[in-house]
């Protein structure tokens, strides 16, 4: 029936937003082993910078790459100033540092842009499209397309190129990677810069649908993080699948069970995954020789 299709489409739409964020999480985690809790804020900065640039009169096609560049530079700065000095700390401490960065960026966002939602025009005029009785926004379709393009690009990058392998090697065995002549500190910087750019891309694509506010990063960040866990932490395709799955779970549980408990059900599912398949839903179990 209609309802099912609408729930499915909405679930995939929302899920693709989560997946966009998850992909940024995986990138940093794959290279540095750090869980970047400020990933959502990269999306926020990308979106709001783009709004400001557009308001300054720059056409949207120019504003977007500029906004991505600005956010990438901020990602670079975050790595150099907050992560690199603490590079020998335990993972927990690094996570807490990224939490601090997240709070800082959110505060800056509030000061610079205020708390009112700001709208961002989409690249292509957005319209509602009817699809067998269900409704989908054209911008959502673009997000899907972007998601798959990113999926292919990142998969190719990490798996098939040398630099991608170097990045993965740096996380797995930083000492061995160093012995191969790889400067692991540079790898960490590259990872953060790339992830910040990915976050900005996500923000710029999402904002036409949801408007940009200084607090938008928190909600999508948490969801992206959960999606990454579903997908198995290290896997880009897993993160994408995880995001879509999360969106669909939310949509169906809200639609068929109750909207009051959507979050509880989604996080309940997360707990089940952590108990029974902590390596993620889409990865084979990996063992390590001791």
């Amino acid at each position, binding site marked *: 029936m209609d*309802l099912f299709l609408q729930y499915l489409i*909405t679930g995939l739409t929302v899920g693709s*937003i989560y997946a966009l964020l998850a992909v940024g999480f995986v990138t940093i985690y794959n290279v540095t082993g750090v869980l970047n809790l400020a990933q959502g804020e990269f999306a926020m900065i990308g979106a709001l910078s783009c709004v400001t640039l557009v308001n300054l009169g720059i056409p949207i096609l120019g504003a977007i790459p500029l906004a991505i560049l600005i956010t990438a530079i901020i990602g670079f700065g975050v790595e150099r100033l907050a992560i690199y000095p603490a590079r020998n700390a335990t993972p927990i401490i690094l996570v807490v540092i990224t939490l601090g960065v997240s709070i800082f960026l959110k505060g800056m966002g509030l000061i610079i842009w205020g*708390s*009112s*939602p700001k709208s961002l025009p989409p690249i292509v005029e957005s319209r509602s499209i009817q699809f067998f009785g269900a*409704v989908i926004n054209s911008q959502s379709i673009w997000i899907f397309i972007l998601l798959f393009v990113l999926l292919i690009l990142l998969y190719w990058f990490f798996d098939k190129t040398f630099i991608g392998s170097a990045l993965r090697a740096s996380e797995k065995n930083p000492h061995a990677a160093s012995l191969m002549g790889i400067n692991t500190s540079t790898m960490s910087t590259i990872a953060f810069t790339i992830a910040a750019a990915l976050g900005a891309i996500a923000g710029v694509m999402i904002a036409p649908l949801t*408007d940009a506010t200084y607090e938008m990063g928190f909600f999508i960040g948490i969801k992206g993080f959960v999606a990454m866990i579903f997908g198995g932490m290290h896997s880009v395709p897993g993160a994408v699948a995880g995001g879509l799955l999360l969106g669909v779970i939310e949509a169906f549980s809200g639609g068929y069970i109750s*909207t009051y408990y959507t*979050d509880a059900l989604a996080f309940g599912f997360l707990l089940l995954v952590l108990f029974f398949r902590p390596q993620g839903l889409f990865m084979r179990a990996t063992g390590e020789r001791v």
Partner: protein
Amino acid sequence: MKQMLKGKVIALLSLAFLLIMAGCAEENVASGEKGESSQDDVIKMGLLLAETGPASTLGASQVKTVKLLQKQLDEAGPINGKTIKLIQYDYETDDTKAVVAMDKLLSEGVVAINAATQSSTTTAVMPKAIEAKIPFLAGAPIDVENEYVYSTVHSPRVIAMPIVDYLNKQGIKKVAWLNAADGFGVTGLPAFKELAKENGIEIVAHEEFDATATDMTIQLTKVRSKDPEAIIVWSRTPGAGIIARNFKALGFDIPMIQSTAAANEGFLEQVKDDNENIFVVGSKLSVLDQLPDSEQKELLKEFKEAYEQEFGEEPDLFAAHVVDGVYAFVEAVKAGNTTAEEIHQYLANDLGAFLGVTGTYNFSESRISPEPDGISVLAIENNTWKYIE
């Protein structure tokens, strides 16, 4: 053995010393200035507003209003030989800092308090005013009744009244209710339920959503299947705007009515260019020129023009709350009251009905809310508010 005894004696003496100090300190404050005018010719009112922090979008206009009012009071000169001083502290959208600022205000000998920009903050600082027996003009919706607490803000029930009027006028008997699952969002339904029952209106569906979520299509789809004749939304932005957009995308042809939390520029921006059938309960200040002539219109105009002249922008409902709180206070002082208790008695018994910018007040009858005459269900046309009869 002797060492231990010595230690105990020192401990006891220290404890006694501390207790005495604490007692003296209390005395100082008590005998000091609480409730009594410190200097004979200055009467102080304290205000706590969010000048910085996330709630500053609401508090900014309030801070400006205080400046405007102080200027007007200074120009008017002393009343009965007394100068009125408005002391305002910025609590930085932090409830803890608000409590600290509250203590400061009390120690400066204010005889009335007007606070705060947000509900949670108001609830946090209110007990101190009550304890000090200082009249407290609440600037945000709260769920407490107390003899010292006077609300300058519409209660959820009163905000729901224009909505019910509108529904009655349109002959709508079945509505769906959607609210944000946060502190503000949940206050609407209980109030509306009562009124709905009295008016024979049935709530056919109720869904909740996160005010910061990215999409509310699910909630709207569920609600649609119950065939409502109107949808009521109780949420702040950005959620209010997103659900409105989803609503339009799904092609509903029934009206959507939003609470006062959507009566701002941010919401208008979110529903730009696609806002037919969307209505919001807002202050008459925003549609001043469209109103029929009346005493109320004159009052609103006076305030609006003064504000615009001073600051170059329009005042909003939050500014209105502050104005009313101060007006009431000034009335009390004009009638010759100078202490907190006197002012409190005056407000409670003698002030009677007075016309405020937010609406008509009558503290003798109700301290919970002004009447709904200051707000109205507004439509949106040409991306700005439109008054409907």
